[in-house]
C-alpha cells in the first residue's frame, strides 16, 4: 500500500480512512504492512467495491488475528476485532442480529485454515450470508514466518526449517476446493495478486462476492494468493514470480463454485421483542388457579407434609404422576417441589422422582427417606422399600409386583393398577390409578380436585375422560 502514501493514488476509496487515526505511535499516513505485501492491494479492492456498491455505512468489517489484525485502522465502517480463527462464528452472530448488514470476514491462512477450520467449515455449511476474504500466502506472517496449513511441500519456514515434509505435516490444504463440495455456498473463487491482469480478475471476484451478500444470495468466499516477501525472504518482484511458479500450480486459480444465478435471495428479519407473541406463548403454558388454604384440615397427622418417592419403568408415567400430584397440591396453595432422577439414572428403563408437599416453603427437594413410596414395578419396590420412614406408606402396583413388601412398620396399600388400567383400555393409565389409591388412602385430596387440576394443566384434553376414570377407579380400589 506504499502507493497510498505518495499522493499518487488516482482515486482514494471513500471506504478507507484518509488518515489512520487508530494507528498508534505515529506514521498514520501509511499502513503497517511490509513493502510488497498483498494486504494493501486487497484492502483497496474491497474498499472500492464497498464504494461502488454504496454499502460502506452498513458494512461490518471483522479483523482477525494475523497481519490483518489491524484491519480496523483502515476500513471506514463498523469494525469488530476478534479472536484467532473465530471470525466466521462472530460474523454469524453479527449477521443474524443485523440481517441488513454486509459482513466481511477477512482471514489469513493460519486463522482460517488451521485454528479456525471448524468455524469456517460450519459457517459455510450453514450458508451464512457473509463474505469471506481468505488471504493465502502459505505462511504465518504476523508471528514471523511459521508453517501454515497452506505451506508448500518442501517450503522452508521457521517451523519447517528443513522444508515442509508432507509425509509428516500433511499436504497444503486447498480451502476453495474443500468448501466448494458443500451445498450451501453460492460463490467461491481463487484469485492471485500478481500482475495487473490477475488483480483485475481479483477486483471482479471481490465485487461479485460482496454483491452476492448485498443480494442476499448466501455464503461467498474469495481465496487470494498473496505475496509475503519478508517472510518468503524475497523482494516484491521475486515474490510475485514465486506465486506464479509455485503457488498457482498447488492452488489453481478459477471459479470453484458459482450458483448465484440459481439461488433465490434469503430474507431474514432482525430479532424483535414481539411482546404480544411472548404474552400469547406464556399464557399457553399450563397453570393452576390457586384455591383454598394449605391447612391439612381433615388429613391425619401421619399423612401431612409428605415426602413422596415415585418409581417405575420408563414409560409408566412416573414423572407425570409426580408432576400431577405436585400440581394438585399447588392448586390447593401448598408449597411443592418436584425433582426427577436425571441422566444415566433415568435411562436403562427406570425412572423415579421426588415430590415434597408442605404448608411451609420447602427447603430440600431431595427425598432420601420418603414417607410415601409409590412403586409401579418390582425393581422400584425392591430398591426403595428399605428407605421408607417408619410409619410411612407404600402404595404399589400389585399387578406387576408379586412379592409383597416385607416391612411391618409401614402401611401397605396393594392396588392392581395395571389390571384396572387394562380394563379401561389404556395400560399406561396405571399411574393415575395408583395416584387415586394413594389420595383415597390418605384423604389428602379428592378425586374432584385431581380432575380440576388435570383440566387446567393437561395440554391435550383428549384423554381427560379416561384419566378421570383411572383416578376414580384408584379411589374406589382402596375402599
Amino acid at each position, binding site marked *: 500500500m506504499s502507493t497510498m502514501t505518495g499522493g499518487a493514488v488516482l482515486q482514494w476509496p471513500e471506504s478507507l480512512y484518509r488518515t489512520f487515526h487508530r494507528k*498508534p*505511535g505515529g506514521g498514520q499516513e501509511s499502513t503497517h504492512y511490509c513493502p510488497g505485501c498483498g494486504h494493501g492491494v486487497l484492502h483497496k479492492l474491497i474498499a472500492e467495491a464497498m464504494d461502488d456498491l454504496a454499502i*460502506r*455505512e*452498513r*458494512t*461490518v468489517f471483522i479483523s482477525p488475528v494475523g497481519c490483518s*489484525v*489491524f484491519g*480496523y485502522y483502515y476500513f*471506514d465502517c*463498523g*469494525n469488530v*476485532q*476478534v*479472536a484467532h480463527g*473465530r471470525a466466521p*462464528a*462472530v460474523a*454469524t*452472530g*453479527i*449477521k*443474524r*442480529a*443485523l440481517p*441488513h*448488514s*454486509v459482513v466481511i470476514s477477512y482471514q489469513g491462512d493460519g486463522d482460517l485454515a488451521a485454528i479456525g477450520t471448524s*468455524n469456517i*467449515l460450519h459457517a459455510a455449511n450453514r450458508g451464512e450470508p457473509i463474505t469471506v476474504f481468505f488471504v493465502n500466502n502459505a505462511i504465518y506472517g504476523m508471528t514471523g514466518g511459521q508453517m501454515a496449513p497452506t505451506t508448500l511441500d518442501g517450503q522452508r519456514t521457521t517451523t519447517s526449517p528443513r522444508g515442509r515434509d508432507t509425509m509428516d505435516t500433511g499436504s497444503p490444504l486447498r480451502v476453495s476446493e474443500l468448501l466448494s463440495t458443500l451445498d450451501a455456498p453460492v460463490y467461491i473463487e481463487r484469485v492471485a495478486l500478481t500482475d495487473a491482469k490477475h488483480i483485475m480478475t481479483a477486483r471482479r471476484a471481490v465485487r461479485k462476492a460482496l454483491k452476492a451478500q448485498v443480494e442476499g444470495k448466501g455464503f461467498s468466499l474469495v481465496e487470494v494468493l498473496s505475496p509475503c516477501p519478508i517472510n518468503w525472504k524475497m523482494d516484491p518482484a521475486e515474490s510475485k514470480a514465486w506465486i506464479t511458479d509455485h503457488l498457482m500450480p498447488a492452488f489453481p486459480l478459477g471459479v470453484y463454485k458459482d450458483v448465484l444465478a440459481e439461488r433465490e435471495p434469503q430474507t431474514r428479519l432482525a*430479532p*424483535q*421483542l*414481539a*411482546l404480544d*407473541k*411472548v*404474552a400469547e406463548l*406464556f399464557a399457553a*403454558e399450563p*397453570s*393452576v*388457579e*390457586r384455591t383454598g388454604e394449605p391447612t391439612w384440615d381433615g388429613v391425619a397427622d401421619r399423612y401431612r407434609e409428605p415426602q413422596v418417592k415415585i418409581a417405575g419403568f420408563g414409560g409408566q408415567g412416573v414423572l407425570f404422576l409426580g*408432576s400431577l400430584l*405436585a400440581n394438585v397440591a*399447588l392448586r390447593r396453595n401448598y408449597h*411443592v*417441589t*418436584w425433582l*426427577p432422577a*436425571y*441422566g444415566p439414572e433415568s435411562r436403562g428403563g427406570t425412572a423415579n422422582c421426588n415430590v415434597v408437599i408442605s404448608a411451609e416453603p420447602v*427447603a*430440600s*427437594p*431431595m427425598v*432420601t427417606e420418603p414417607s410415601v413410596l409409590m412403586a409401579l414395578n418390582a425393581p422400584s419396590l425392591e430398591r426403595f422399600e428399605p428407605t421408607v420412614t417408619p410409619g410411612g406408606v407404600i402404595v404399589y402396583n400389585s399387578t406387576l409386583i408379586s412379592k409383597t413388601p416385607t416391612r411391618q412398620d409401614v402401611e401397605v396399600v396393594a392396588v392392581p393398577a395395571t389390571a384396572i388400567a387394562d380394563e379401561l383400555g389404556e395400560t399406561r393409565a396405571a399411574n393415575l390409578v395408583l395416584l387415586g389409591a394413594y389420595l383415597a388412602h390418605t384423604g389428602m385430596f379428592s378425586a374432584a380436585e385431581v380432575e380440576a387440576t388435570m383440566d387446567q*394443566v393437561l395440554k391435550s384434553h383428549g384423554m381427560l375422560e379416561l384419566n378421570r376414570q383411572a383416578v376414580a377407579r384408584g379411589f374406589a380400589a382402596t375402599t
Partner: protein
Amino acid sequence: MAVELVKGNDALLRGAVLAGCRTFYGYPITPSSEIAESAAALLPQLGGTFVQSECEVGAIQMVYGAASAGERVMTASSSPGISLKLEGVSYLVGSELPAVIIDIMRGGPGLGNIAPAQGDYFQVVKGGGHGDYRLIVLAPNSPQEMCDLAMLAFELADRYRNPVVVLSDGFTGQMMEAVEFPVPVTSIPPKDWAVRATPETSGNLINSIRLMPEDLEEHVTALFEKYASIEAAEVRYEEVQTADAELVVVGYGIVSRLLRAALARVRDQGLRVGMLRPITLWPYPSQRLAELAETASGFLVAELSTGQMVEDVRLAVNGRRPVAFHGRYGGAVPSVDELVKAIEAAYPAEGRSA
C-alpha cells in the same frame, strides 16, 4: 391467581425471554441441554435466533458477534463446555461486551459425570480465561430465582458492559417449583457503542487489543474501577436466623436448600445456627461475612466440591474465627442428616454452654 409449576432450566430460558433476549447460541451438553432445547422451541416463534453451533468455542464467539451488534444474547453449557468458552469470555471482557452465560455445573475434572456439582467456582468466579478480569456471577437456588436472576443477568450485563454468569447445578435446573413470571422488559436501553451497521455507528469499533502497554494498563485500570463500582452496588445475599447465631453456615445454590433443611433440625435441638447464602458469588458478600465474624463464633461452609468458595469465606473472616468445611463431590450430594452432623461438629464449644 394462576401459578405454574416450572422446571428450573425452563424458568431460566423464559426469564431470559422476559428480559428481552431473543438470541441463543449453544452446543448440547448434559445437564444444560434443556435450556438449548427450550430456546430452539421458543425463540424462533418470537422471530428470534437459535443456532446450534459447531462447538462451544464457536458458540461463545457467535455470542461475541451478537453482543457486538447490541443484541441481548445468551449461551448455556455445563462445566466442560464452560472450560472451552473461557477464551471467548476473556475477549468479551476485553471488548466490554455484555453477554449472559449459563453454567449448569456437573461433576469433574475431565469428563467427570453429569450429576450436580459446584466444582466450577474457581474457573467461573476466579477467572479461567486469560488476563485480569471479573465476571458478575449469580447463583440461583430455585426455579423462581432461575427466572429472576436470568432477568437480572441481562440487566447487569448491559449496565456494566461485562459478561454475567448464572452459575447453577443439575438439581436446580431439573427441579420444578411454582414460578410467578414477572412482566417482560418492554424496551432495551440503546447501546450507542454497538456496531449496528448504521451511519451513526459506522465509526464504532469493538476491540480487545491495546498494543501499547500504557494503553492496556489504562484499559485494565478502567475495568477495575468499573469492578469497584460493581462491588459497591451489586452484592446480593440472603440471611437466615443470623441475629443470634453462634455458627453461621454458608452455601450457595442447591446446597443452600439442603442447609436450610438442616438448619430447621438443629434449631429444634436448640443450636443457634444461621445461614448466609451468597446470591452474587462475585461480587462476594465479604463485608457481611466480616461483620458476622464479630458476632458469631464460627463458620461452616458446605459445597459440592473439595472446597472452592470456602477460600472466599476464609478471606472475609480473615482468621478471626474458625471456618470449617464440609464438601461432597464427584456428583455426590450430602444428605440433610449428614449436614446436621457437620453442623453439630462445627458448633462452637462456647456456644453449647451458652
